[in-house]
């Protein structure tokens, strides 16, 4: 009978995890970056889905914090495209959006999202959700 859970394992000494923050709002990216860097992530930013795909092709991150409504390419279109890319199943994808109805949430999960954050959010919510997908 083992009482040691993998969730309790410290992440110290591991390679720093990377998170791509995809949001067209500079302010949201700034807040998310601050929270994620405090949690130990190396953060990169993209302002829409197209830019995010380019980032992922160059270097696939461990996590993606993803807005829904963005110019050029929305979050849901990006997610479907990401999951079809080589190694695109790898990143944990957490939506972070003002869309807070069940139909949007279900659509996101069906497209391969791992978690879903409804704005407004705070550091505790981000921390809980990243822990939920096993990144903390």
């Amino acid at each position, binding site marked *: 009978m083992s009482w040691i859970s993998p*969730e309790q394992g410290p992440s110290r000494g591991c390679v720093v995890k990377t998170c791509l923050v995809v949001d067209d709002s500079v302010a949201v990216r700034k807040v998310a970056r601050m929270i994620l860097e405090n949690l130990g992530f190396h953060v990169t930013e993209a302002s829409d889905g197209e830019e995010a795909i380019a980032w992922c092709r160059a270097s696939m991150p461990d996590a993606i914090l993803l807005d829904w409504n963005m110019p050029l390419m929305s979050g849901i279109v990006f997610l479907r495209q990401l999951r079809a890319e080589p190694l695109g199943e790898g990143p944990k994808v957490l939506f972070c959006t003002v869309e807070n109805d*069940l139909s949007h*949430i279900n659509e996101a*999960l069906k497209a391969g999202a791992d978690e879903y*954050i409804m704005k407004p*959010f705070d550091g505790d919510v981000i921390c*809980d959700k990243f*822990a*939920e997908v096993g990144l903390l």
Partner: protein
Amino acid sequence: MTPDDLSLICRIVRARAGYVVDQAKAAMIENRLGSLVRREGFSSLSDLVGAIKTKRDERLVWALADAMLPKDTAFFRDRTPFSQFRDVILPDLEQRLGTQPLRIWSAGCGAGEEAYSLALTIDEARAGRAVEIVGSDLSERCLERAAAGIFSQMEVQKGLPIRYLVRHFERQDEAWHLSASIRQKVQWSRVNLISEISTVGQFDVIFCRYVLGGLDDLMRKQVLSQLAGALNDNGYLIVGRDEAVLDQAVGLSPVWGSSDIYRREPALRIVA
């Protein structure tokens, strides 16, 4: 607020709930009691304390004690106790219990997040046996909220995995309503842990988290002893992180490798 008023508030909370409040934290006390002052129609906290002194209104005294207790809670708080409940405690009890129903108590349940987290876990585990979950709190207001099963958007995002939200909640306006099928799995009861608790019965698992830490030493020992007495042999007590309660005298042994999970040892059974 005069030092006398602050002292009276602290004495009331200690006498009624066993909870220790530092009299020096005047701002915290005023903050916690602000909404009670408005709700009861007083113009200031001093007026409310004055009314308690002159009228000795029991309802108001209890309302004050209730309002002073910390209310912070979350779904699946700290995560690990709930995964251990699912992965180790439930299978262990499944083997031991025979055909009896499994009885679980969330003691100091606040707005019900802990009891509902257990109900959701059991629902997902699809255990075949009957399960009875009791959520108790000193606060009537908390119990009303818990029974309603209505949570804010922020509350359902703290600790609750999204798969549970889509399966068991519906959004109405800006609030999230828990399904009747999960709500019906929990019975609610007003219990003051520092008083007689035998009325709630015997349990196989007791979650009593972030309650004991606020009590004074004597009261903590008394409550622990009562909780141990409410556990069936080999039953589990789960306390909050850093609330280690190792105390052989009450017949509880820490489960190996964990500082917040204890088991009632039959060999150590105390005579009540």
